[in-house]
Structures are given as C-alpha cells and as structure tokens.
C-alpha cells in the first residue's frame, strides 16, 4: 500500500512535469507550473519531508508562477 502510494505520487509529478514541458506558450505555462508544484508538495509530504513541502508550496506554487506571469506580461508588451 505504501509503495503504491509513493509510486502514484511519483507518477503524478511526472505527468504534471510533462504537461508543463509540452505547454509551449509561456503565457499559459504558469498555470500548469503551479499545479506541478502542488503535485511536488504532495510528493514531499508522502515522503515525510513536510519542511521541504512547505517551501515548495510557497515558492513553487505561488511566487514563481506570479513572477513568470508578470515577466511575460512585461516582455510581451514590447
């Protein structure tokens, strides 16, 4: 059961990462990037690393997609 859970979350992360990579428009990439970070957060919790999970949740799911969105908006306007 435990191994199945670990494998399932690993698979979830892999699928989410694939979606991020195959999204070509950077404008749309921020949303799957955020979801990918959420999947990574779940993975870290399952692997009993709550400290890293908190970092990933705050930085990966919130700050980085926001920076990407703001940068794309600025660069796209030129």
């Amino acid at each position: 059961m435990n191994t199945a859970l670990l494998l399932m979350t690993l698979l979830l992360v892999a699928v989410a990462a694939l979606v991020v990579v195959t999204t070509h428009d950077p404008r749309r990439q921020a949303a799957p990037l955020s979801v990918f970070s959420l999947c990574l957060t779940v993975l870290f919790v399952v692997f009993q690393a709550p400290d890293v999970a908190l970092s990933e949740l705050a930085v990966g799911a919130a700050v980085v997609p926001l920076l990407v969105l703001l940068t794309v908006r600025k660069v796209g306007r030129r």
Partner: protein
Amino acid sequence: MRTRDGLALVGGTGVAALLVAAFLRMPAVGEHAHVYRDLVLPAALRANTPNLVSSVNFDLRAFDTLGEETIVAAAVVGVLALLQPPDRRATPPQRGYVLPAVRFSGYLLLPVAVVLGLDVVLHGHLTPGGGFQGGVVLATGWHLLYLSGSYSALQRLRPLAWLEHAEAVATGLYVATGLTGLVVTGGFLANFLPLGRFGSLLSAGTVPLLSVLVGLEVAAGVIVLLSRFLAHGLGHAR
C-alpha cells in the same frame, strides 16, 4: 543548432548515467540504518530542538543558512539594481473584474495566511517549517490584498522603504548573532542562549532567534522583490 543539440545530448546522457548510478547505491526507503540521522538525532535532542530539520538549518549548519540568506539578499539587491521603476508616471492600473467568489476567499484567507505565516516562523524549532517557509507564506499571503482589494490598498499597506531596511537589518543581525556566539562560546554561530525546556516556545537556544531573523529577511525581501516585478508588469511608476 546541431552542435548545441549534440552537446545537450552528451550532457543529458552523462547526468542520467550519474543519477542511475547514485540511485542504485541509495539506501532503501524506510531502512533502519542511516549514518547522518544517527548523528543528527542525538545532536538535536541535546540542543532541545524537536524539529530536526530546523536543528540542522539553524544550529548544526547555521553557517550554510547564512550563505542561503545572503543569496536571497543578493537576489533582492540584483532585482532592485536591474529593474529600476518605470520612468513614466502612468496611472495605477484600473481595477479589473475579479470573480466575487475569488474576492471573498481572498478576504477570508488573508488573516489565515498571516497567522499561519507567523505561526510557521515562530514555531520553526518545534514543528515543520521555519523562517524561510513562514517568510514566503507571509509575503505571498499579503498580496491577497491586491487580489481581493485593490492595488492601491496593497501600495498603502506595503511600506517598501521600511521593508528594504528590515531586510538588510535582519541579515546583519544574523551575522551579529553568529559573532556573539563566537565571542561567548568561541564558535561562529554557536548557541549561547539557555536551551530551555524541551518542546516549549522559548527553548532550543539560538534556533528560534535565527529562524525569526530569516523569516523577517525573507518576508521583507520577497515583498520588495515582487513590488518591482508588479511595477513593471502593471506598467506604472513606483
């Protein structure tokens, strides 16, 4: 283009081979023998720090954390230097349409995020978390003001001049704490405060102090950093 692809292929294959070699020698998940854990656990218990990760971050490897803190400070200084505020005095952005449900959840979650951030910072030595995580939660949670309220509300409740100073002062105080340890005990960043009772809020010596300093630095730094990105993304003068 071809050369670049070839180079990437060679590099990627090398990294993949190294990763496979490393994974093959990794101890199995949940195994009982682990050298680092057997060294860290007694050290953390001696220092009355229930959260082993914080014990590593702010006691055993506090010097590494100083380096990481400096990286955050350098990133903020870099953004401040490279992203000068736009020149033109454009009007602050117009209020766009936000779904009422989003607005409502934002108002609901703003106090929750702030309390959670403070909790994660202050209990870094007891429960999962610490200065870095709590600081980022505080900084991002504060931006719910923009999502639910307005940009001018965020601007009014975001004293950037103070935050820039707070970031620098917190980084400096981390070094000062380390130097105090050097003077009192003879080791840079060594603990010099009483260890207290195991599991109580005021315990674990310098671990909560350093955690709070990092929390202050990270929260202020991330807000300052995001302010420049927001100013450019929304196209207005600071």
